[in-house]
């Protein structure tokens, strides 16, 4: 039960953290709410995948990044705004910020074993996120290229 409470707390704080960042990055009104919800969605997917599917943090990050990117691409098209708006803020709670910090603090503190461990983990997480984003955004780009191609063809035959 207390674990469940922790998950809810993390999702809620992911929401508020994302909202804070969207304020800081100057997102306005409904777009701010959408990006904050994206942050919450990302962490929800992360938690669900971790609990019920694959117990590997990297895979969870990958899946959550994919979910947030799909979400961001959809809302970017609805709101006619760059995808970055929702993407940057949406992935914030999954960013290996604290890991990057610990890596460097181990480096400064001469703890080389831990430095290597955390450093590799940080890079792996950043890669998992980046690959998750790239997979979806490439798929979207290909799909939209196909759609415009056929759309043009159709238009061409009509005129």
């Amino acid at each position, binding site marked *: 039960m207390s674990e469940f409470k*922790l998950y809810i*707390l*993390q999702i809620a*704080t*992911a929401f*508020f*953290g994302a*909202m*804070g*960042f*969207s*304020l*800081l*990055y*100057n*997102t*306005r009104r409904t*777009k701010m709410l959408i990006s904050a919800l994206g942050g919450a969605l990302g962490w929800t997917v992360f938690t669900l995948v971790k609990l019920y599917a694959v117990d590997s943090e990297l895979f969870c990050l990958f899946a959550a990044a994919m979910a947030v990117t799909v979400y961001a691409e959809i809302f970017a098209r609805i709101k*006619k*705004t*760059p995808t*970055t*708006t929702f993407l*940057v803020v949406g*992935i*914030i*709670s999954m*960013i*290996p*910020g*604290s890991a*990057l*910090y610990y*890596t*460097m*603090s181990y*480096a*400064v*503190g*001469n703890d080389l074993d831990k430095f290597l461990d955390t450093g590799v983990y*940080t890079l792996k997480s*950043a*890669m998992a*996120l*980046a*690959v998750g*984003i*790239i997979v979806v955004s490439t798929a979207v780009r290909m799909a939209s290229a196909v759609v415009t191609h056929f759309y043009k063809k159709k238009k061409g035959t009509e005129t």
Partner: protein
Amino acid sequence: MNSDELLKFSLDLGEQMLVSGAEISRVEDTLQRIAHVFGCKSADVFVITSVIFLTLTDSEDRSVTGTRRVSRYDTNLDKLHKYNDLSRYICANVPEIDEIRERFEEVKQEKGYSLPLQVFACAMISASFTLFFGGSAIDAAASAVAGAVLKLIVFAQSKTKVNMVFSNVISSAAVCLLAFSFVRLGFGEDSSKIIVGNIMLLIPGVALTNSIRDMISGDIISGMLRLFEALIIAFAIAAGYILVALMFGGVTL
């Protein structure tokens, strides 16, 4: 519009988009589209995080080249949205240069949220992430105060144009000092949770992830620049932490 005006405007727009937080590919794509709309035969654009190179070749094979150095960033997604709208508008309507300039300047002049609101946002972010990483309620309160102070420090530094590494050392040292003092005074239980919450404000995690995104999608140089910038900033933050932690006896070198 003649090529010189087009070149100058394209560089201005590209610079502002980059400053506001656009991806490399978006800037390159936008500049290319605008050049073609205005009848250029080819437009060679090369953008990295700190420089834009642009060569426009018109229908009579005359070419003009320009570069623009970008040294300051100020992520503003609302402005980015408006520049994006502007470029769509330009491509759809091909308006006169005066009209484009006017609209462009209008967006450029826009101010972001006020400082108090930004301070509030920072307090909210650091409190949220302190809770997120397992801090208690009182840690979150301490973290919110530290986050607000941190924003004021960062703001003061942005006015004085201090060197990036140095300013991060100072900011992170200030945060750690606050966190350790709060815990000593009984306001907060776990200083590391308070620090981690605030570190989220400083750490270039987004830059790190974007750098790998850039590299995978082919913008290797931009990716490398961003990656190293992120690592150096992280290093500076850790150095600031260590400075303070040595004073409080948390670490020994």
